């Protein structure tokens, strides 16, 4: 039963300014509980905005450090979930359920990737 990392990408420029509604947070809480009870959810968290992030880059033997915000990025990782599921289809089904609880004015992309074991 492989593990999957779902990288939750949002467009920070156009995300709802007021953040997640109370109703969304409540649905999120219920879904997290359900996924935990199903033994699927291993870990999940949101990330602080990229404005507070730092990029450390190694290129051509040189190190560079850049503080956010990173203007050129359209969609950035705003959170993650680590799932344990039987296969990609199962991980995608749970990911759909996570997206479905958002209101229609949200644009969210989840990139689901299998974790290399061993």
């Amino acid at each position, binding site marked *: 039963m492989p593990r999957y990392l779902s990288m939750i990408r949002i467009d920070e420029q156009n995300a709802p300014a007021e953040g997640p509604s109370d109703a969304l947070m409540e649905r999120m809480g*219920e879904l997290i509980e359900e996924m935990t*009870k*199903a033994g*699927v959810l*291993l870990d999940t968290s949101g990330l602080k905005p990229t404005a507070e992030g730092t990029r450390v880059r190694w290129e051509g033997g040189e190190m560079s450090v850049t503080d956010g915000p990173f203007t050129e990025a359209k969609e950035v990782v705003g959170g993650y979930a680590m799932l344990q599921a*039987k296969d990609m*289809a199962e991980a*995608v089904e749970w990911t759909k359920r996570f997206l*479905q609880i958002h209101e229609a004015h949200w644009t969210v992309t989840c990139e689901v990737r299998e974790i290399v074991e061993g």
Partner: protein
Amino acid sequence: MTPEPSEPSADAPARAIETVFRIESPRIIAGVARIVRDVGIAEELAQDALVAALEQWPREGVPDNPGAWLMATAKHRAIDLVRRRERYARKLAEMGRNLEAAAPHGHVDEPADPDDIDDDLLRLVFTACHPVLSAEARIGLTLRLLGGLTTVEIARAYLVPEATVAQRIVRAKRTLAAKSVAFEVPYGPEREARLGSVLEVIYLIFNEGYAATAGDDLLRPALCEDALRLARVLAELMPKEPEVHGLVALLEIQASRSAARTGPSGEPVLLKDQQRSRWNRLLIRRGFAALARAETVSTGAMSTGGVPGPYVLQAAIAACHAHAHTYEETDWARIATLYGLLAARAPSPVVELNRAVAVSMADGPEAGLAIVDALAAEPALRGYHLLPSVRGDLLERVGRVEEAREEFERAASLTRNERERGLLLERARSAH
């Protein structure tokens, strides 16, 4: 899991439906079993709901809440079945079942109350692990109904023919029906023993994956993960039971070592030689958290004389290893103490053997050897390859090389695992 060959995309909707069904099936079977009071019939009705979905969804679209749709469909069929049975029963002038008691509260189309689903799942767990069934039957039924494995997958995991597994499961369902096993969670005096049976089933599944008793691979990780998932689910269903959290902690920490337990060509790597950087930190952290939960709930619960249960103790031992960044840092004195508590709480020759190892590390090989020699005549360990393997190791450490060599050879002749045999023969050759 070996990946299935990819289907042509025309089957995509069907595959998506099957995925939803696989996720939901334990809950559906549990919900339906409460109505029909028979896990075999419940499983058939759940399958009927899947067939209905495969017919309707591609035509009419996937419902907003596919899980609730499947549940409602299966429950409708269950209620119809009970009604038909009742009519039949009345015709036979027998006492009919009181349908009101069996029907779910409220309207069937509404999403079920999560608490009701949890209760139903718990009933399913206790029924599948009922002591009237053999250990093999319990394992098969649990993997099938709660783990959502197909008989093919179970057969592959246990290296037995599929027909054997299928038959085992059919017989198990028949036995439950024939013995009129109630679809309920036990309370009162039998509860602890029945919970013990559930924990044992999950532990046996994990162990079969962790220390494959037969075949060429040392590990069958899929089974470990199935067991771990079952344990995690159970911990959420029974959050007040310290031993359930103890089992979760034990399995999380054991599983954290999976990647380090085999070398490049699949040979086993002993704990002391494992590259600890390859231990999975997330699983270790989860294991520690589960152990902490066990301790939290046991302070509030009625505990047997303050001594933790066997799973909590084993988890505490596993946690000692996980806390040590190098083998040399291992707190063997604490591990020996914990094995002492375990030997008092749940005495077994295997525990005693492990205690001997810990004592030999804490107080020297002579002290360990004294415990092992006392086990030599233990009938339960006759044919158990780890006894001569441990004894060989201790003899080698006290400089009795010839005897050590004989013990390693004896151990090699007893193990059924090819990988392990190679390792033991190597130790016999290199004993010095």
